[in-house]
C-alpha cells in the first residue's frame, strides 16, 4: 500500500536548480535511505517533502492527500522531521523536549494523555533514567534518541531524518538505526533517512535513492543500487561492492589500486 508519494519534485534557490524532477513512492513500514555526495540535495529534498521549502513544481501526496494545500500544523500531525543535530543549548529537560513533539495537538495545558505518550516514548528509547536531565548535558547518542522520541510523540505516519547518525560512534549508529527499523516494522511508519554511510544504509534501508546533482541517479533495493559504476560516476571513487553478507557492502580503494591488484 503506497503511503507517501513524491512526484516530479523540483526546487530552485533563486535560479540555481537544486532538485530536478525527483519521484519515488513508499509503503508503510518501509525505510528509504537518501544517499549521495555532499551538496547533492538530500537536505533540500527532505525539507521539500515536509513542506518547509516550497517546490518549484511537483507534489507530495500522503495517504492520497496532497500536502501542498495543508496547514503547517496539519502537516506536523502527518510528518515528523528530525533535523541534523545542532547541539542545542536550551535549558529544557529531556521530558519537556519530548513533550514539545505534542505541540501539533496541544492547546496550552498538558493532558494526562500527552504525558502518557511521552512516558511511552521515553520507555521505548530507553531514556527513562535521563528524563529530568537537561538535553544540553547529554551525549550525542542520547541526544539523538531524544530527538527521535520527540518525533515519535508527534504520532505521524512518516518520519524524516537528516543524518541522524552523524557524530555517533558505530555502536550508537547501529542503536539508532535499530530503533528506527523497529519503529518502521512495528508501527508501520514510513521512514526517510538521509545518510552518508553507504554500508549503514545498505544494512537497514529497504530501498535507496541515490541523488546526484539534484537528480535521481538510482532508486531501488541496496543490492541493485550500490554498484562500482554508481560509486565511480556519483562519488568519483573506485570501490569494490561485496555481496557475501546479508547486505551488500562497499569497500573503497585508493585510486589505481584495483588495476595494480588485477
Amino acid at each position, binding site marked *: 500500500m503506497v503511503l507517501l508519494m513524491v512526484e516530479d519534485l523540483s526546487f530552485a534557490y533563486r535560479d540555481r536548480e537544486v532538485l530536478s524532477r525527483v519521484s519515488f513512492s513508499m509503503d508503510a513500514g518501509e525505510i528509504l535511505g537518501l544517499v549521495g555526495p555532499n551538496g547533492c540535495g538530500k537536505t533540500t529534498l527532505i*525539507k521539500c517533502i*515536509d513542506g*518547509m521549502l516550497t517546490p518549484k513544481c511537483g507534489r507530495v501526496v500522503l495517504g492520497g492527500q496532497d500536502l501542498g494545500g495543508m*496547514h*503547517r*500544523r*496539519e*502537516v*506536523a*500531525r502527518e510528518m*515528523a*522531521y*528530525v*533535523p541534523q543535530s*545542532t547541539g*542545542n*543549548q*536550551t*535549558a*529544557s*529537560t529531556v*521530558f*519537556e*523536549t519530548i513533550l*514539545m*513533539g505534542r*505541540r*501539533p495537538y*496541544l492547546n*496550552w495545558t498538558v493532558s494526562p494523555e500527552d*504525558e*502518557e505518550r*511521552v*512516558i511511552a516514548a*521515553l*520507555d521505548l528509547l530507553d531514556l*527513562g533514567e535521563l*528524563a*529530568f536531565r*537537561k538535553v544540553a*548535558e547529554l551525549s550525542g547518542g542520547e541526544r539523538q534518541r531524544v530527538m527521535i522520541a520527540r*518525533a515519535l510523540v*508527534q504520532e505521524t505516519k512518516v518520519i524524516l531524518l537528516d543524518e541522524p547518525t552523524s557524530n555517533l560512534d558505530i555502536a550508537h549508529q547501529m542503536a539508532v538505526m535499530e530503533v528506527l527499523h523497529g519503529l518502521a516494522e512495528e508501527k508501520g511508519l514510513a521512514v526517510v533517512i538521509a545518510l552518508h554511510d553507504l554500508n549503514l544504509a545498505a544494512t537497514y534501508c529497504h530501498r535507496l535513492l541515490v541523488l546526484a546533482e539534484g537528480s535521481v541517479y538510482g532508486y531501488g533495493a541496496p543490492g541493485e543500487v550500490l554498484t562500482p559504476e554508481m560509486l565511480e560516476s556519483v562519488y568519483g571513487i573506485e570501490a569494490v561492492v561485496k555481496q557475501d553478507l546479508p547486505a551488500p557492502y562497499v569497500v573503497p580503494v585508493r585510486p589505481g589500486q584495483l588495476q595494480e591488484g588485477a
Partner: protein
Amino acid sequence: MEESVILREGYTRLRKTRAAFIGGLLALLVILIGVAVTLGSAGYTVGESYLAILAGIFPETFTAPDMADVIIWEYRLHRVLFAVAAGFGLAVAGSVMQGILRNPLASPFTLGISSAAATGASVAIVLGAGFVGGEYLIIANAFLFALLASAAIYGMARYRGVSSETMILAGIALMYLFSAVTSLLQYVGTAEELQAVVFWMFGSVGKSTWTKLGIVTLVLVCTIPYLIYRAWDLNALAEGDEVAAGLGVPVERSMIVFMMIASLITAVIICFTGTIGFIGLVAPHITRMAIGGDYRTLIPASGLVGAVLLLAADSIGRSILAPQVLPVGIVTAFLGVPFFIYLFMHRGDA
C-alpha cells in the same frame, strides 16, 4: 509500570517547583513594595505604608496615619509600581528575544533598540526636533526611534531571509550606527544638552507618573497574556527554526510577531525611563537557571524576577546615598552583574 509512575511524579514535581518559585517571587515582590514605599524623607513603617496603600483603595475601611496616604499615593507608589512594571516588561521582552533568536546575549540592548531610543532622545534634547512637541517630545522621539530600529531589523531580515543570524547582525550593526549618531549629537550639543543626554542614558524611574504607569501597564496587559498563550511556539522556536517548522510553527511569521511585541514592550518602557540595560538580559537567565526553559512559566517568572531586581535596585539607589538618588540603570549593573556572575560560575550540574 513502576517507571511510568516515577516519571509522572517527576513531571508533577517540576510543575510544583515552578509554581512555588512564582508564588515565592510574588510574595517577595509584595514585601519589597511595602518596604520601597517607606523610603523617603517622611519616615513611615512598613505597616503604615501598607495601611496607606489600602486606605487609598478602600477609604471607607482603612485610615492612614498623618498624611501617609497622600505622600505615598502622590509621590511614592507610582514610582515603585513603575519600577515593578518596567522590570517586568523588560525581562519578558528579553526572554522572548533570547528565545526566538536563540542567543543568550539577545536583549533590547544588543539589538540596537535601546541605542535607537537614546538617539531619539538626543535628537529631541539637542536639536529640539521631533514628531510630537511639548513635554512629550523626548518620550515620543525615544519611542519612535526604538520602533524604527526594530522595523529596520525586520526589513533587513525580510530581505535577507528571516533567521536569528540576520536579526542579530542587523541589530548589532544598528546599535553601532545609533551610538555613533548619539555621540555626534553629544559632540555638537552644549554642555547642558550633553548633561541631559547623558542623564537620560543612565536610566531612571524617577520621572514616573500615574499616567505613564497606566500606559506601560496597558501595553503589558495587552501583550504578555498573548505571549504566554503562545508559549509552546516560543518553546519550539527556542529549539531552532527547523525544529519549530517541523512541529508545525509558522516560523517567519511567528518570529516577526514576537520580535515586534518584544520591541513594543521595550520601547514603551525605555522611552519613559531611558536605557535600563541588563534586566532584560539577566532576569531570563536567572529564571532559566532556577526553573528551566518552559515559556509557559518562564515568561511570568522572568517578569517577576525583573520586577524584583529593578525595584530592589531603585530602592537601593534611593537609600544608599540619601538624599542623593543614584539612577537605577547604574545600580542595576552594580547589583546584578556580581549576582549574575556568581550564578553563572556556580551553575555546574545543579
